[in-house]
């Protein structure tokens, strides 16, 4: 399609510099409603990357992914090629590839749509990655609640096997692979890689102590690579287009394309695949700007586990380095946009309720810290906060950050610490009575009341 005059249905078109950030690569096939079917997928250049990859030496594929600079898309951003390289080869142990499809970070919506609309792109990536790390068995751990995505995924596995892309001697390469699609049981913690492995092994989903790392002692104590869906789905395009092409997008240390999930008080929330380094200002422009009557007040760059930012960070590049430079993290690029109509204290409370609910309970700082923070925040919202509560919350965070086996506890400190940092006055307004209590009063010293028992005290949303 050639560029034409902007369609008049938009009041104002996005600026050219924002449009230039769009990079439809992983999301391109989503426009074809039947791309989940293997015959349509193959018409759309499907499985050409696999054919090309099988002609190469597995070590060359690892080197290619390393040269591309692909970094994990699950939140941590660990260099993918390096992770693959950590797998000891010729050790006599079975290797496993595990795909983390347990998308649960609040605000994130990229992996599930991908598995719904284009599951074969993930399958193709899985086969290539498994071939590279010499894994003959791959597992896709999909979030249990994503029932229809799981149907599409399981159907894709069956279709792929029927055409010889899975099974024994794939396309005559001598490489065998079976994929198991496993549905999770509804726990956010099972998106943590070692908790996921525990759950996959049939045990309670609780994180393991690391070291040793999954690269040497992962699934069934064997070398395992755990990668996010978007990371693996990027692999076929790197195989086809090469490392230099991938690096032509994004920034030097964060190359490539990323699916940004923009939600909240914007005119057109949705998935916008852009090159890494896009700013919030550009994303808002693409999403049609703030919704009418709303001004940007606070936003999360990568889901609730990343410290929130404010309107002053409109032009900070959304890549791994840019976000680290302003004291937060890129996370899963779950950009949640809030306005003056949103109560930052209440949002923090709801997020901590989530972390409290999802905490697996293994580590005392996380289990007790979240439990405690929920109650302190509820007390503040009920108009019974004290000035010492802010110090208490920060003290709790100080005892939680970096003190548990996994990052759930760390994630819980993000909204609390950043909201107090940027919006201390909002808290003080509740504590000092300038703001009407949002929740019906929790009786002083009451414990064990259910979170659903708190009523909204007649406040307009």
């Amino acid at each position, binding site marked *: *399609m*050639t*560029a034409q005059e*902007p369609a008049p249905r938009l009041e104002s078109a996005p600026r050219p510099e924002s*449009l230039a950030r*769009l*990079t*439809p*690569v992983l*999301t391109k096939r*989503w*426009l074809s*409603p*039947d791309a989940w079917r293997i015959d349509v997928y193959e018409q759309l*250049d499907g499985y*050409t990357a696999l054919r*090309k990859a099988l*002609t190469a*030496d597995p*070590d*060359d*594929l690892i*080197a*290619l992914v390393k*040269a591309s600079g692909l970094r994990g898309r699950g939140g941590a951003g660990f260099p993918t090629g390096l992770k693959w*390289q*950590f*797998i*000891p*080869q*010729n050790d006599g142990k079975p290797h496993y590839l595990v795909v983390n499809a347990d998308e649960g970070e609040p605000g994130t919506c990229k992996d599930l*749509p991908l598995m*719904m*609309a284009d599951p074969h792109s993930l399958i193709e990536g899985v086969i290539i990655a498994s071939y590279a790390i010499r894994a003959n068995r791959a597992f896709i751990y999909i979030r249990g*609640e994503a*029932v*229809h995505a799981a*149907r599409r995924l*399981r*159907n894709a596995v069956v279709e792929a096997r029927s055409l010889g892309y899975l099974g024994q001697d794939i396309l005559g390469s001598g490489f065998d692979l079976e994929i198991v699609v*496993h*549905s999770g*049981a509804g726990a956010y913690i099972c998106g943590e890689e070692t908790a996921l492995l525990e759950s996959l092994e049939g045990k309670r989903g609780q994180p393991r102590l690391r070291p040793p790392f999954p690269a040497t002692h992962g699934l069934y104590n064997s070398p395992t690579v755990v990668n996010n869906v978007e990371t693996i789905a990027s692999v076929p395009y790197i*195989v086809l*287009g*090469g490392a*230099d*092409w991938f690096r032509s*997008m994004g920034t030097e240390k964060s190359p490539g*394309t990323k*699916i940004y999930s923009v*939600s909240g008080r914007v005119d*057109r*929330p*949705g*998935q*916008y695949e*852009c090159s890494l380094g896009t700013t919030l200002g550009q994303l808002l422009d*693409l*999403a049609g700007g703030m919704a009418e009557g709303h001004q940007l007040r606070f936003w999360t760059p990568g889901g609730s586990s990343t410290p929130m930012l404010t309107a002053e960070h409109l032009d900070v590049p959304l890549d791994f380095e840019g976000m680290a430079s302003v004291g937060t993290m890129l996370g899963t690029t779950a950009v949640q946009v809030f306005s003056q109509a949103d109560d930052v204290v209440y949002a923090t409370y709801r997020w901590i309720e989530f972390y409290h609910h999802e905490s697996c309970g293994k580590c005392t700082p996380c289990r007790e810290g979240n439990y405690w923070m929920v109650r302190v925040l509820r007390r503040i919202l009920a108009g019974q906060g004290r000035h010492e509560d802010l110090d208490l919350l920060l003290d709790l965070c100080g005892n939680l950050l970096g003190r548990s086996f996994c990052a759930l506890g760390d994630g819980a400190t993000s909204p609390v610490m950043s909201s107090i940092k940027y919006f201390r006055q909002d808290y003080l307004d509740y504590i000092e009575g300038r703001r009407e209590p949002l929740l019906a009063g929790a009786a002083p010293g009451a414990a064990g009341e259910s979170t659903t028992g708190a009523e909204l005290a007649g406040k307009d949303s």
Partner: protein
Amino acid sequence: YAPVMTVNYEYFDEITPDSAVELVKRLQKPEDGLPVSARGARLCGFKEMSQQLAGFPDERVRITADGLPGEPTLAGNRLAEQYGIAVSGFNPDTPIPSAHAQGGQAAGGKA
């Protein structure tokens, strides 16, 4: 899509208090036809759902074809399509660099 209500894990989008009540009323009278999720599949019972969660295939005819992505999912794509944005420089025949001599064995990879 928000606010979203799920019924047996299938999504019903842009729910209001009134439409939520209407949805429940329709669920209470299945003989009049169950509501259909735009993005998901036809509803099935909890027993069938639990079997699917355990990994058994959904046996209903063409069930995988149910559901279409909504506009929010396609938002970025639509913009790119509308303004003719495409990624440049993509050559699917770009050779994969090889570090090994031709015909060489797969080297014992680095740990």
